[in-house]
């Protein structure tokens, strides 16, 4: 687990360093995600000779992702610092957020489905395609 965590943190570190060094607008962890992808594909090649190599990584990563909600709590509690702005513009802000989120969800899902039908990569009602849990 320590090795897995180190690999993940190392990818993030590389991402942050490169982003800062070149002044890119891309967030460091997003670049780190690309590095981990490269690592995973390299791992699968090495694995043919050393089956144990990097096997724990998946469990550690999935453990982190299983409780993704938890990680948003500290930043979100910051809401208590801006109650004054919310009191003044709260209604407008909430309306804007809800309407915009609704429109964005509809536009994105429809675009995805239409393009996927047109390009012949449709996968509708394929519940078993992923590791299906519950619908």
């Amino acid at each position, binding site marked *: 687990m320590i090795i897995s965590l180190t690999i*993940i943190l190392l990818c*993030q570190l590389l*991402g942050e360093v490169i982003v800062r060094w070149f002044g890119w*607008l*891309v*967030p460091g*962890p*997003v670049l*780190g*995600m690309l590095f*981990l992808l490269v690592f995973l*594909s390299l791992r699968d090649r090495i694995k043919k000779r050393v089956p144990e190599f990097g096997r724990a990584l*998946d469990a550690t*990563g*999935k453990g*982190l*992702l299983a409780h*993704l*909600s938890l*990680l*948003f*709590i*500290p*930043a*979100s*509690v910051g809401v*208590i610092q801006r109650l004054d*702005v*919310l009191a003044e*513009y709260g209604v*407008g*802000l909430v*309306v*804007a*957020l809800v*309407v*915009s*989120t609704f429109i*964005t*969800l*509809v*536009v*994105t*899902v429809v*675009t*995805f*489905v239409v*393009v*996927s039908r047109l*390009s012949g990569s449709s*996968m*509708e*009602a394929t*519940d078993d*395609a*992923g*590791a*299906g*849990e519950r*619908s």
Partner: protein
Amino acid sequence: MSDQAFSLWVYLSQTPLLWLVVTLGAYIIADRISQAFRRHPLFNPVLMSVVTVALVLWLTGTSYPVYFEGAKFVHFLLGPATVALAIPLYENRRIVMRAILPMVIALIVGSVTAIVSAVAVAQLFDMPKSILISIAPKSVTAPVGMGIAETLGGDPALTAILIMLTGVAGSVMVTPLMNALRMKDWRARGFAVGLASHGIGTARAFQVHSLAGTFAGIAMGLNALVTALLLPLVLALMLD
């Protein structure tokens, strides 16, 4: 309060330990409640936890910076969790590669829609420019959205809150909305909620279906990139 209780409180309120435990405890309770209601969208674990923690802080008269001293250890894990999104992405790489065209087009269309619709509706309510800038990156994952708001002259703390509310709104809406639209493609459903509601939407998608979660994670990562690049242009067109 007795002297002993008072000195105990002085100790507890200064150590990160207490607020770390409160954060984890609030989450565990909220997650159990969410499970008990079979992940009903209205019982959103993030929202319930935030309300619980905020109440505890209010009752104890604790300020946010003091709380964050403890909670920052949890906050830090957002970065590694973003990196870890590569794991489900890699596992599903064949399905992902097959969907590359719908993903790219839905990404660009969705990203512009998210920015334009938020700013346009907010403009109807006669808000100052700094608030319009703060709401523009509301669909992007918090660390990136806050950075964007700050660079363009918005209020990063307000952006963080709007991002959180967007995440909760999207994860509450997505399941009933997609069912009403009869969308059965888990890739499309996940992609939409990841794009519109970043990590909180992605967390919701993973609770519902792992393929949806994977596509939500990709959409979140890509939208952070695309919004960072497009938002200055879109805002210049809308506000000047």
